[in-house]
């Protein structure tokens, strides 16, 4: 009986009228946990009932405490008929289970009904008394903390980073069909909400157990996703990074940490394994914050880059590409063919069934017969590159530094039937063995035409790479040694993956590039929810593949790792991606940190460029690449382009500012079913990825930049199209060579007018590059002009040779093994269509003046953030009425859709200028045949200080202080200051009283006091308003006789209102503020449905209201935990369905984040404005 849950229902307000006759409601409340239910008395005839109930006590296992939510149902009592439900509140009590998080949940919660939305509010008090559980075999994992934040949470220190944890839970989703069902919509929506809540509770508990097993006490970068597989079930899966965290004591520590972080950029991170991450970076001063980039949808996979590695003449790009495409397609097809007979629907002997979740299990994928020949190789996750054709392939694709991220093509797994887990990469493997059938090739050619030259270029570039990162002469041996150590540490892990996107200093040694894998699967009903091994096996394959990709890049770890799915009917694309990296092993072992902090040696490597150095060995280069000496330290080699999925490291040296770079692509696909459909998708994927990649690279060059961070590629599948969207933040890394220009080449060079046309485009592009450099303040000392302005090479060269340009510096040029000297990046165009297409792609509208945008946590080059932030979600659904669209037309539409969306955002947020949109997270979906849905969540942050904001801030700070004073009086339990206990498992017998937070309620801002402060300002505002307004009366209104004895009260007093302000942000920090406490994870799932769509304002009205409601519920939960902000907020899922004919619509939304308490860094300011206070607070009515 390890826990006692206590709940008290205090009051309700703004209840809906349930009795038409009296216009009132007779409300009572049911409180349910597990199978126990309590009821309050009926509070008759009131819309603002005061129940003030006793404490309802539930005695439960802590296992249940973790799994179950507390369910509060508000009902209207009816003597004659059944009681009507008004709505529900689900309260996740997980935050109360850790001694360091919240101690009590208390506040107003919106009462939510899946049909009517929010209907009034209810005030609830919840506490938990936990008894210490000494049972070693327990199933619960109370005390393990979860963080969505993908960096070490501020105000904590990572003692050990244990590594990857994953888990998934499956269940049937019997009521996924929403339109015709037997139960009422309300009943089935609630059943689903509850089911998902239970599943995620269970999932979290299981992950917690794994963490405890590893010796950790927290999960950072926790990423939980739902796969709504429809008929085949519901999968809830999560990944994260297990850590042992230690709370930094007090604010002082935080400051110090920040100080260190900032002031010691000169410590070489790579050579000083010991650099201890003494802390957390504090929010605003340090640019690196973990980003939640692992959002559900990054499907990056296969970049065509692979081609290169192909043995086929590298100077004949076109054929080789063709060959590759063909071979891929072909092999897939053949695989599919082969498999069909073998695997029936119920494909029996699944060799994988040996408990998927068991760590260290050898990857046995190979066993399925059809693919055996190659799959075996692919599954040999490691290694020796040169031996197996497959591995060779991989590296080429993936590796690339150069081309950035090119991940592995391989991911296109054969679409074969359901449960058979099939090595995703297998499709590609045969490249070397299967000669490209020419007929297939032809059909592909047209599609690939444009891209060809590119890939070639990348290839070649890749081929030129120098020695690996460790090549630095003196540093070499040391590094190798170090690497070996790390390797052993990591080798023991099944998956050396980290969901973190930003790291303690010294942790990240080298970054090689993006690795990713994708696999197409056919869904089948999950027969036994208790044994989800199919799904487990699928992911395991992908992870193995990722791991082998990383190996091929000379890396032993993958950081910024994330997984996602896209489902359409019974086809599912699984994607995994991350950044191959070399880590400092010291952080991975217990007890070494202290040592670290003592000698934080090494100065030999320059700061800010170490992570760019290539980690692989020059002599054993896994793929061709072009390397050049590091522009910062000139000692080791760096690639010419770097793509990563992580945030920009804090100490990275960046020139100028960054910008959002997006590649967008739509591809038509034939409608088909089952395997045919899967095959079709598998065939398209590589091309899609290739083009996305090409676009990214083009746009990057156009911006004059050389690296991408936070890369996230999602591919969504619909019935008749595939949509790909790649977003990343481009920057100019000082360590990398300056990017070459872009050269345009035509294929009919003899035509004069055509040449003119080409050269005019060339001019435009060159102008754009110059303009962009100006815009992003990229001033490079080296001479870049010759690149940009370089004349078009002779036709022959043009079409054959492509190389990315590198400004190799002279001292080392003899060592440069790259094939070429300075060649510009060449784009070949064939006809007018292509030109236009190209041009439109290359000329995204620039952001309006005063705006910057990025999808990482912060923007390099901007440091002086103000406290003004505005988080928002915007959703658009686009209908393609024209059924006869070509790929080109489709692309154009999709591109415009995204551009217009961005334009709208800029317009909306114009009042915040100068500002930066950070963590712009785009999600695409193809909900129906001709619909494309794009959802964006981001935060706009102002960065230039100005008067009003100062004033505001001061006012806010002041009211906070006041709120502290007020609330402290109201607290029922005396709270001890800083009574934080370090051990998460310490007994909580004494209950919430010994909780740590004196700040518990502190931060809530009281509107009414705030209001007073603002009143003079408001007065002014009002005056202005009046003058502006035509024909209205106000201003001149007559003075009353002074003598009137009843004086009027202050205009601006808002009686009884105190709604605390809760900030929300997708970032891990709040500018100008210090996060003093993490209260727990917020993970909420809501369904909303309507049967009166038109009356609610159509689809837009419906969704608008729903999103607003979701925000409101998140804020209410955070406020009830005592918090005043949500960080690392993200909307994981937004599934919208409508049936206009029936006037119905339904939407599911899943959001998550970390509830925190922050304090303003400049609280003192708050006192100043008090004197100007026009109305003494005493005037405020009680």
């Amino acid at each position: 009986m390890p826990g006692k849950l206590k709940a008290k229902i205090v009051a309700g307000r703004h209840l809906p009228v349930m009795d038409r006759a009296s216009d009132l409601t007779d409300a009572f409340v049911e409180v349910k946990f597990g199978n126990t239910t309590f009821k309050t008395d009926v509070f008759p005839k009131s819309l603002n009932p005061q129940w003030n109930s006793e404490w309802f006590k539930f005695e439960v296992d802590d296992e249940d405490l973790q799994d179950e939510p507390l369910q509060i149902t508000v009902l209207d009592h009816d003597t004659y008929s059944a009681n009507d439900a008004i709505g529900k509140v689900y309260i996740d009590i997980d935050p109360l289970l850790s001694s360091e998080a919240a101690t009590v949940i208390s506040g107003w919660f919106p009462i939510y009904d899946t049909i009517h939305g929010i209907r009034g509010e209810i005030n609830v008090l919840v506490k938990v008394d936990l008894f210490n559980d000494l049972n070693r075999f327990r199933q619960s994992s109370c005390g393990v903390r979860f963080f969505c934040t993908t960096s070490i949470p501020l105000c904590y220190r990572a003692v050990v980073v244990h590594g990857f944890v994953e888990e998934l839970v499956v269940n049937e989703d019997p009521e996924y069909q929403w339109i015709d069902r037997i139960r009422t919509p309300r009943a089935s929506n609630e059943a689903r909400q509850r089911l998902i809540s239970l599943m995620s509770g269970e999932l979290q508990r299981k992950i917690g157990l794994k963490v405890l097993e590893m010796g950790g006490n927290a999960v950072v970068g926790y990423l939980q996703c739902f796969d709504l597989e429809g008929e085949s079930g519901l999968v809830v899966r999560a990944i994260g990074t297990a850590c042992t965290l230690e709370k930094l004591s007090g604010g002082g520590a935080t400051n110090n940490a920040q100080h260190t972080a900032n002031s010691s950029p000169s410590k070489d991170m790579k050579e000083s394994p010991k650099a201890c991450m003494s802390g957390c970076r504090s929010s605003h001063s340090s640019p690196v914050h973990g980003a939640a980039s692992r959002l559900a949808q990054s499907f990056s996979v296969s970049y065509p880059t692979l081609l290169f590695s192909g043995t086929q003449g590298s100077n004949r790009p076109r054929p080789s590409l063709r060959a590759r495409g063909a071979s891929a397609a072909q092999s897939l097809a053949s695989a599919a063919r082969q498999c069909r007979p073998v695997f029936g629907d119920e494909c029996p002997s699944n060799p994988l069934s040996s408990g998927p979740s068991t760590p260290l299990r050898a990857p046995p994928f190979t066993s399925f017969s059809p693919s055996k020949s190659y799959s075996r190789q692919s599954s040999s996750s490691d290694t020796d590159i040169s031996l197996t054709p497959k591995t060779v392939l991989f590296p080429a694709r993936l590796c690339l530094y150069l081309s950035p991220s090119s991940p592995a093509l391989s991911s296109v797994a054969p679409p074969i039937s359901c449960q058979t887990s099939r090595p995703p990469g297998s499709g590609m493997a045969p490249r070397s063995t299967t000669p490209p059938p020419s007929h297939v090739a032809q059909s592909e050619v047209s599609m690939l035409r444009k891209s060809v030259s590119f890939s070639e270029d990348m290839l070649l570039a890749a081929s030129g790479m120098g020695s690996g990162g460790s090549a630095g002469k003196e540093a070499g041996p040391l590094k190798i040694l170090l690497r070996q150590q790390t390797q052993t540490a990591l080798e023991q892990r099944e998956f050396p993956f980290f969901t973190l996107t930003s790291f303690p200093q010294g942790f990240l040694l080298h970054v090689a590039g993006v690795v990713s894998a994708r696999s197409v699967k056919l869904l089948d009903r999950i027969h036994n929810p208790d044994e989800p091994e199919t799904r487990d096996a699928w992911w395991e394959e992908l992870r193995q593949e990722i791991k082998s990709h990383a190996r091929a890049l000379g890396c032993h770890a993958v950081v910024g790792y994330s997984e996602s799915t896209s489902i359409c009917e019974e086809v599912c694309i699984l994607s995994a991606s991350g950044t191959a990296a070399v880590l400092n092993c010291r952080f991975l072992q217990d007890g070494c940190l202290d040592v670290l902090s003592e000698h934080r040696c090494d100065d030999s490597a320059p700061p800010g460029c170490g992570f760019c150095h290539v980690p692989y060995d020059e002599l054993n280069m896994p793929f061709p690449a072009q390397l050049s000496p590091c522009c910062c330290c000139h000692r080791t080699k760096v690639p010419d382009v770097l793509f990563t999925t992580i945030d920009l490291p804090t100490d990275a040296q960046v020139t100028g500012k960054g910008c959002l770079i997006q590649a967008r692509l739509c591809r038509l696909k034939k409608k088909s079913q089952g395997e045919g459909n899967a095959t079709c998708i598998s065939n398209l994927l590589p091309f899609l990825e290739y083009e996305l990649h090409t676009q990214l690279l083009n746009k990057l060059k156009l911006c004059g930049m050389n690296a991408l961070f936070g890369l996230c590629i999602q591919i969504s599948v619909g019935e008749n199209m595939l949509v790909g969207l790649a977003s990343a933040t481009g920057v100019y890394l000082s360590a990398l060579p300056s990017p070459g220009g872009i050269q345009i080449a035509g294929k009919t060079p003899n035509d004069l007018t055509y040449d003119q046309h080409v050269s005019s485009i060339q001019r435009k592009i060159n102008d754009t590059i110059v303009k962009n450099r100006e815009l992003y303040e990229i001033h490079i000392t080296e001479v870049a002009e010759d690149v940009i302005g370089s004349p078009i090479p002779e036709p022959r060269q043009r079409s054959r040779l492509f190389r990315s340009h590198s400004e190799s510096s002279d001292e080392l040029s003899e060592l440069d093994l790259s094939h070429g000297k300075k060649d510009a990046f060449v784009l070949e165009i064939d006809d007018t269509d292509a030109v236009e297409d190209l041009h439109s792609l290359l000329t995204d509208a620039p952001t309006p003046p005063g705006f910057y945008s990025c999808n990482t946590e912060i923007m390099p080059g901007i440091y002086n953030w103000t406290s003004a932030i505005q988080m928002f979600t915007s959703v658009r659904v686009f209908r393609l009425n024209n059924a006869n669209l070509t790929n080109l037309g489709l692309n154009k539409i999709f591109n415009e859709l995204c551009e217009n969306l961005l334009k709208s955002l800029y317009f909306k947020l114009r009042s915040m200028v100068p500002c930066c949109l950070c963590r712009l997270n785009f999600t695409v979906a193809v909900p129906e045949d001709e619909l494309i849905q794009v959802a964006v969540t981001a935060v706009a942050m102002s960065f230039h200080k100005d008067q009003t904001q100062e004033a505001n801030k001061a006012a806010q700070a002041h009211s906070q202080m006041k709120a502290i004073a007020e609330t402290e009086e109201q607290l029922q339990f005396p709270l001890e200051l800083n009574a934080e206990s370090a051990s998460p498992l310490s007994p909580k017998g004494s209950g919430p009283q010994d909780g740590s937070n004196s700040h518990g309620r502190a931060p809530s801002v009281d509107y009414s006091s705030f209001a007073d402060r603002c009143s003079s300002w408001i007065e002014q505002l009002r005056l202005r308003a009046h003058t502006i307004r035509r024909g209205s009366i106000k201003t001149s209104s007559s003075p009353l006789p002074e003598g009137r004895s009843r004086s009027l009260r202050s205009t601006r007093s808002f009686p009884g209102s105190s709604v605390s302000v809760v900030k929300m942000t997708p970032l891990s920090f709040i500018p100008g503020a210090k996060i003093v406490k993490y209260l727990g994870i917020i993970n909420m799932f809501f369904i909303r449905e309507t049967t009166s769509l038109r009356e609610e304002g159509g689809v837009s009205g419906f969704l608008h209201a729903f999103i607003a409601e979701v925000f409101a519920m998140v804020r209410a939960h955070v406020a009830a935990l005592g918090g005043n902000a949500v960080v690392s907020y993200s909307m994981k899922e937004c599934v919208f369905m409508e049936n206009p004919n029936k006037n119905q619509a339904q939407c599911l939304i899943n959001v998550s984040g970390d509830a925190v308490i922050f304090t303003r860094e400049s609280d003192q300011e708050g006192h100043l404005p008090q004197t100007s206070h026009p109305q003494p607070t005493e005037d405020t009515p009680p």
Partner: protein
Amino acid sequence: MSVELDVFVGNTTIMDEEVYQLWLDGYTVDDAVAVRMEGGALQVFEASMEVLHSDTMDQFRTFQMCERLLYYPSKLTNQLLFQIPPQKQAMLIERYYEFDSTFAREVLGKKLSKGTKKDLDDISTKTGITLKSCRRQFDNFKRVFKVVEELKGPLVENVQHHFLLSDALARDYAAIVFFANSRFETGKRKLQYLSFQDFAFCAGQLISNWTVGAVDNMMEDMDVDLEKDFLHNLKELKILINDKDMLDQHRNLVCAQLRGKITVFGEMEANFKNLSRALVNIAAKLTHTKDVRDLFIDLVEKFVEPCRSDRWAIGDVRLFLTHYTSTAHSLDSFRYQQIWERYMGVIKSCILKMYHD
């Protein structure tokens, strides 16, 4: 190709005051977009028409969702659905309850009932205010009226407390409620020249001087009704005109004071008895509800118009009324000083307010 769904939701609700005003004024989305385009919104960030349309739609939707909270503004301040900074809340409320004085003038003194609501199209045509806006304003009047009608205590304060309005606006609402409750006649042609502001001023005077709350601070009673006793006592003033001596004496005193001070002395002297009779008769009749309703028309017909036809300047009127009131104290047998003061104080300021073209 069409945008099927387009929403933008901020954690802090974004509301543009200009767009809010367009919404309040009853513009359709398309009209509002047109107005904004004329206003130069397109120059900002090279916004396109679609951007503007999307922004306008979005905000209109937000306002619509907020509207039900604005019916009872205290709800807006403690609801959880929209996070709106207090100063924005104040703006929303204030603007929502603001009204066009031309509209208010039309409705003033009418019963706030369904019948009147049906006439709103006529008012809309007449004033050029959109029907939608008229409805909003009318419903606001009605809602405020309903809430405040039965409440005890000072009217203005009640309005302010329940609707969180600014001082000035609360006073205007008090006037509207007061007029609607007493159903003062304001629609006659002769009264057309008076603006809403004139009436609102008068209402303020009546509320602060002639209601129960005016004398008794601790008031049990409400501000909406005139004090019965006071009205009843006004009958006593008739002595001023019925007693011939007193009337003459009063005239002499006033003439003595005003000699040489006003340009229309002759006319004043000749008309004194008529004017005095008019003012006192109005007072004496106020016991009847119907005559209360006619207060303003009586004042205009019996006092304002005669003076105007004799071309009294406003300064003359002021001097006359001042001395007319004060000299009554010197009348030996006049015992109703207090009532006289209370009556004339209001009448004087009302007449002065109403004395214009």
